[in-house]
């Protein structure tokens, strides 16, 4: 899905926990996330802390979208 959307000219940031899969599939902008069952969260944290972590991760994804790349890049 990442590739087909990017093929249409829209930059996609792939946020996932298993980087080798994302690389094999062919994502160009990859942001590693926290864990497979909760990529954008950490149940061990307090709710507010977890939210902060999530926002930071989304900011990182936005930064990846705003960063020119000419090959597969892990942020």
């Amino acid at each position, binding site marked *: 899905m990442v590739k087909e959307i990017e093929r249409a000219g829209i930059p996609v940031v792939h946020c996932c926990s298993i980087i080798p899969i994302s690389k094999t599939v062919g994502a160009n902008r990859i942001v590693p996330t926290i864990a497979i069952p909760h990529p954008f969260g950490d149940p061990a944290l307090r709710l507010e802390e977890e939210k902060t972590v999530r926002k930071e991760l989304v900011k990182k994804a*936005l930064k990846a979208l705003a960063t020119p790349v000419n090959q597969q890049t892990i942020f």
Partner: protein
Amino acid sequence: MALPYRIIHCLNQFFGGIGGEDKASLKPCLLEGPRGPGNILQKFFPDIEVTATIAFGDNYVAENTDRAVREVLDMLRPFFESAKAEKPVMLLAGPAFNAGRYGLACGALCKAVAARYEIPAVASMFPQNPAVNEYRKDIYIAKAGEDVMAMEESVRKLGVLGLKLLEGEAIWPEKDEYIPRGFRQNYFHTQSGATRAIDMLLKKLKGESFTTEYPMPTFDRVKPAPAIKDMSTARLALVTSGGIVPKGNPDRISAANAQCFGTYSIEGISAFTPESYQTAHGGYDPTFANENPNRVLPLDAVCELAAEGFIGTLHEYYYATVGNATSVANARKFGESIAKILVADGVQAVILTST
């Protein structure tokens, strides 16, 4: 080598009989004798004796590959320090079918064990398993079917290839149904290369089909799209393969091998609540996603960042499917359909989350 051949078999927590997704973060453990597919292996091949089974949580190995590999190597050391007759002679792993995490775990363990203990290692995977590209050069990968329906034939191919390796028989990727490793083997052909090349050329000129002797690798890579100049004015859309859907899964997206994706409005919604949303994904423990679906698709954080001016506007729908042993062909189709809608709506950037 004395018969029966003593082998070690690697399985994930599910096929090892330990548990489902709730046990996916389990550290590798050593079990005596065969489990699940190992029993089928012994039934088909009386010359094979599964000495021990290593069962591991597939999330654990996929997320902590280096640590898990070290743990398994340590676990196996006593076997290789035992009297010669007792030593295992081969490692088999899977079938992992089209399961990405399971495949990666099998690949990593086969590669490490083969290198450390100098025994052949064979994994069994569906050719489109993402782990195949990662490991095909390092290990033997017998072709498996797409899912567990193909268990028996997949186990059979794994066993046949393993036995041939142990007995030092010649093997060929096409004939023995394993993934080519990129090695060249010499053999005598009845016709010279020149004759075969001319034959192929004539067939090509006549428009007939022919089989190349040296297939070119196909790298389907997409050129990175240009970066967004200013996210604070850009239009963003959200897509996920993590299965976040409205409660009740109205489009009945399958928990595995999804046949469709869902289109869901987020107009006026600033966060996913556990009362109204859930995950439909059958490939990970859903506890955390069901407690708070924003952990898989961070709508709450995206909306706050939009309100704070980090994002221009948000596309009014999000798109969700389940990326659990979903075929590449289907994923491509979903991606093409979603892309069309996004382009038509003037979306400039996409965050796609996966579990």
